[in-house]
Structures are given as structure tokens and as C-alpha cells.
């Protein structure tokens, strides 16, 4: 299947700058309310486009009829899941969110390093939860390697990357990517951290792979979640949107206890926790949002 964003302009329903049927705005609000993922007004045509693809597949003609399908008791859960697949398709690529990476390297890492500097073990643990085919995990690894001679000199970095899907985990381990996944990767990173496998594909170098441990994990498996301790950073992008309220809340509680004090939790760029956990502090960095587990420094300990 061809990925969404590439072909968006050739598809049915509105193009950029064309008025969008108000029903799509209603669908946008529904998706936010149920799943916590928000589509900007200017990207509403992408939402309309995703709906259009679904409408075609299920043989529905009008947005209003599609709204009925999305809200009818019998079909809503399954259809919403299908729609989310369409919305997030093509979202995964390396270096997907530069503001997240900037916040990480310019603000968070210096803060964590300073806070942990008195510890005997200079170790940083990062978890990419729902790592899909490894794009995010390797992006983090490369950025950590960039800091290895500066901020992180003498530090050990471990990146744990997990996904529910075995096939994704296998593909992630191989670390081979084409143009589309590499569309936001600069030549600098391509040259430094990849080797060509054929004319069109690049593979991440062994020194990058060495930082990442991939494994299969179900985020709803409570007993295994309890073992994921001592994290400094957790990234979980476009995964929780598929969970219902109670399971989402449970997973977020797990993430909170998995994190060290002073650690950070990142969601996808248009996702929100929607007040599902009062313990995390919502913090703004330039161009990005994260959730912070307050450090003990200011507390009584």
C-alpha cells in the first residue's frame, strides 16, 4: 500500500485551501475526545482525505453517512480504529519531530545530566514504547551518539524499544529504510550513521544498533510493565490513541512509575493525555509538549 501523505493530493475530497465539509470538523472533535489526537484546522483536509479513503472502502458516499457509521453503537469502535490507521499512516519516519529532539538535546539532557551527576552509575535509560519499525528508536540513538563526546561523555545510554507486533520488531532490528522513512533525515546523519544496502535503501550502522535493544511487549501486560523500571525518558507516539479510556489510563500510570523522578514522557506531536493522570506535570518546550515526573529535589527528601 502506498503511504498517505505522498498521495494525498491525488485523492478524493478536498485539497488544501478548499472549504472542508463541517462534518469533518465534527469527526475531528470526536477523534480528539475519544482518542486524544488533534488535527489542526489547516490539516483538516488530511483528516477529510483519510475519511474519504475509508468511505470508499466501506462504500459510503457522504460525510454525514460516515459520521453515522462512526457513531453507531455497533460499528463505532472498529471504524474508529480503521480511521486512526488512516490518519497516522505515513507518520513514522526518522527525525519526525525536530522540536522534540531539540527539547531533548538542548534542555532535557543538560537537566538530567546535572541532576544525576552525583550518582555512581552515569547511566541513561530511554524507552521507545510502541516502536513500530524502529524509526524513533534509531533517531534517539543517533542523537545520543551526537552527544557522546560532549554532554554524555562517560555516560552509558540504553534504549529499550518495544512493540506488540513481532513483524515490526523484526523489521526494526534489521534497520533498513527507504526514501520515505528517510525524508526528514539530513545528509549529515545519513552519511555518518547509515550504509547503503542497495540503490534505494540505507541501513543503520552497527554502532547505532548497539545502543538499542528491541523486544516484543504488550503495554497491557501488567506483570511485564512492572519490570520496566528506572526509565529517564519514555516515548510513546501514536500508540495510546488506539486504547480505550481505562486501558489508556492504566498504561499511563505504569509509565509514571516506570520513570525515575525528574524523568519525561513524550507523546506524538498532536496527542494529548487529556487529564488522564494528575501526577505528571504538563510542560511546554519550544514547539513541543512533554509530561514530567517531578523531581524530588524540591520535595522533602
Amino acid at each position, binding site marked *: 500500500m502506498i503511504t498517505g501523505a505522498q498521495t494525498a493530493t491525488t485523492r478524493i475530497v478536498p485539497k488544501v485551501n478548499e472549504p472542508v465539509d463541517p462534518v469533518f470538523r465534527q469527526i475531528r472533535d470526536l477523534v480528539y475526545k475519544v482518542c486524544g489526537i*488533534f488535527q489542526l484546522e489547516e490539516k483538516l483536509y488530511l483528516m477529510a482525505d483519510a475519511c474519504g479513503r475509508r468511505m470508499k472502502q466501506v462504500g459510503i458516499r457522504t460525510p454525514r453517512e460516515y459520521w453515522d457509521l462512526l457513531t453507531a453503537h455497533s460499528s463505532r469502535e472498529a471504524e474508529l480504529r480503521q480511521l486512526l490507521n488512516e490518519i497516522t499512516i505515513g507518520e513514522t519516519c526518522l527525525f519526525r519531530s525536530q522540536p522534540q529532539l*531539540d527539547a531533548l538535546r538542548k534542555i532535557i539532557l543538560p537537566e538530567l545530566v546535572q541532576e544525576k551527576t552525583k550518582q555512581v552509575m552515569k547511566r541513561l535509560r530511554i524507552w521507545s514504547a510502541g516502536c513500530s519499525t524502529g524509526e524513533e528508536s534509531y533517531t534517539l540513538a543517533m542523537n545520543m551518539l551526537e552527544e557522546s563526546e560532549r554532554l554524555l561523555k562517560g555516560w552509558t545510554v540504553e534504549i529499550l524499544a518495544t512493540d506488540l507486533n513481532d513483524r515490526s520488531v523484526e523489521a526494526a532490528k534489521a534497520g533498513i529504510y527507504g526514501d520515505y522513512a528517510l525524508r526528514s533525515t539530513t545528509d549529515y546523519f545519513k552519511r555518518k550513521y547509515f550504509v547503503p544496502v542497495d540503490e534505494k535503501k540505507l541501513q543503520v550502522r552497527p554502532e547505532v544498533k548497539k545502543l538499542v535493544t528491541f523486544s516484543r511487549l504488550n503495554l497491557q501486560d501488567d506483570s511485564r510493565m512492572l519490570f520496566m523500571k528506572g526509565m529517564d525518558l519514555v516515548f510513546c507516539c501514536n500508540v495510546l490513541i488506539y486504547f480505550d479510556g481505562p486501558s489508556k489510563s492504566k498504561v499511563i500510570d505504569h509509565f509514571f512509575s516506570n520513570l525515575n523522578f525528574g524523568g519525561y514522557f513524550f507523546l506524538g506531536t498532536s496527542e494529548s493525555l487529556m*487529564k488522564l493522570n494528575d501526577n505528571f*506535570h504538563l510542560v*511546554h*518546550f519550544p514547539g513541543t509538549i512533554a509530561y514530567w515526573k517531578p523531581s524530588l529535589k524540591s520535595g522533602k527528601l
Partner: protein
Amino acid sequence: MTTVSAAIIRERVKNIETTPSIPAVFLPLLKLLNAPPEDVRLEEVVKLVSYDNTIAAQCLRVASSPLFGLAKSPESIKGAVLTLGLRKVETILLTCCLGQAFPSRQWALDPAVFWRHSLGCAMVCRKFSEKIGAHDHDKAYMAGLLHDIGFAVNCQAFATEFGKAVKHALQEQIPLNEAEHDIMGFTHCESGRALAEKWHLADDIIQVIAYHHAPDLSHAAQPLVALVHLSDLLCRMRGLGYGYYERHKADLLHNPAWAVLQQGHRELENVDLVRFTFELDEAVGEVFALVMTIFGTTAA
């Protein structure tokens, strides 16, 4: 660090060369802005706009811009005022007047970036004010528009020192007010206050200008100061800052200003800050376009 006394700041502000060239419509306009919207008469606004050729031309140009999607450009001032609506006319007037009061040659800051932040903050203040059901959204808008006026003062009255402060902020990626404090020993809050007092701006606006970086020090209009403080932070975190990367983390919900706002506005409890942030992103493009229209291609 040098310590500059309030007296010296006042003295320099008094001597800003360009201050006498403030357009004649400016002060009547401020009065108009302070009046409740239902008391504003359209003819009065048209008269004010027509009074100054530059401003009249500016209004016509903005009204004809694709931003407003009109099939036919308005030909008269009245047409432009009707097309734009009072709110936009106010914005344009105030911006043009301030733009004229502070000619942008030799600014240490890019004036387009300065106006983008000011207009952006004004917009966020209004939206925020509406969201929490505050009673005077226009006041909030004006407070946002004027909160950083001290930067314009610094560009004129303290050009060399302020130039160094801007350079320092860019190099260290720290907030501008911290850099000002490090290099100059005072900030745009003090110089802005001196100008605001000289202009006899309303006391609540003076409080905003003086304390938007330290809302806990304000002794009047605290909710308004808190609102501008939070809106300013949001702007800087969402692409409407001063055009450089600020190494800054903002915990708005645990900011004392949030608690101040919450005292008077229970609605704040129900505000989904993440969604509000996303909604603001949608307006960023509009602010860029507006500044582009007002300042032409000089916008960086």
C-alpha cells in the same frame, strides 16, 4: 552589571527623538480603545483613520489583502472599516501608530519579529480571556499588544546596550529579559513602564508592562497581569517568540499566575491546555500573514 536607576531610564525615555512624531490619532485612538465597544461610533473611527494619510493607506492595503478574501477591494476608508470590522481596524491603527512612533531603522530586534510576538500575544490574550469567561476581552487584547513596548523603547533609547543584550540572548539561548538584566541591569519592563507613564496609559496596562515577567510583584490588576504572563509564555513556546531558540521549560499549570487566574475564574479548571495550545497553532499562520501585510516584505 551596571545598575541604571529609574530616573535615568525616565530621562532617556523623555529624550527619545521620535516620540514627538507619534501620529496625532494615537492618543484619541487609545481613548477609543478604552471605551466599551458598543459606545464606539463608526463615524468616529472613519474620521480617525482618514486623519492620517499613511494610516489610511495602510488600512486600505490590509483590507485589500487576500487574507480577508474579498472579491472586490474597498475603495473608501468607510468601506475598509466596514470590511475589516472595528476589531481589525483597531489592531491595524494601533500597530501602524506604534510602528511610526518607533521607526524600525537600526533596530536591534527584527521589527517584524517584534510585531509578530506582540500581535500574537494580543491574539492569545483575547482567546484566553474568552476561554475563561473574563469580562473584558478587548482590554486583554490591548494588554497583549502593548506588554513588550519596552523593547521598542530600548531599541531607540538604549540602542548599544540593548544590541549587546540581544546578542547575548541569542548566543546563550536565554530569555531576552534575563539577557537584558545581565547586560543592562534593567529590562524592557522598566523602560516600558517609563514610556507608559509618560503616555498616561491606563494603570492596569502599566501594571502589565511593568510586571508581565514577575506577576507576583504587581499590586493591581493581578488577573490581567497573570493572563498576559501566561499568554506571553505560550507564544514563546509555540513559534511566536523572538525568532530564536529559547532554552526554556514552562510549566503553566503550576505557574503561580495560573493560580491567580483561577481564583477569579473557575472556568480555568475545565480548560484543556493541550487542546488550547493546538488551537493557538492554527492562528500562528494568521498572525504571520497579518504582519506580512502590515509590514510588507520586510518581515523575516
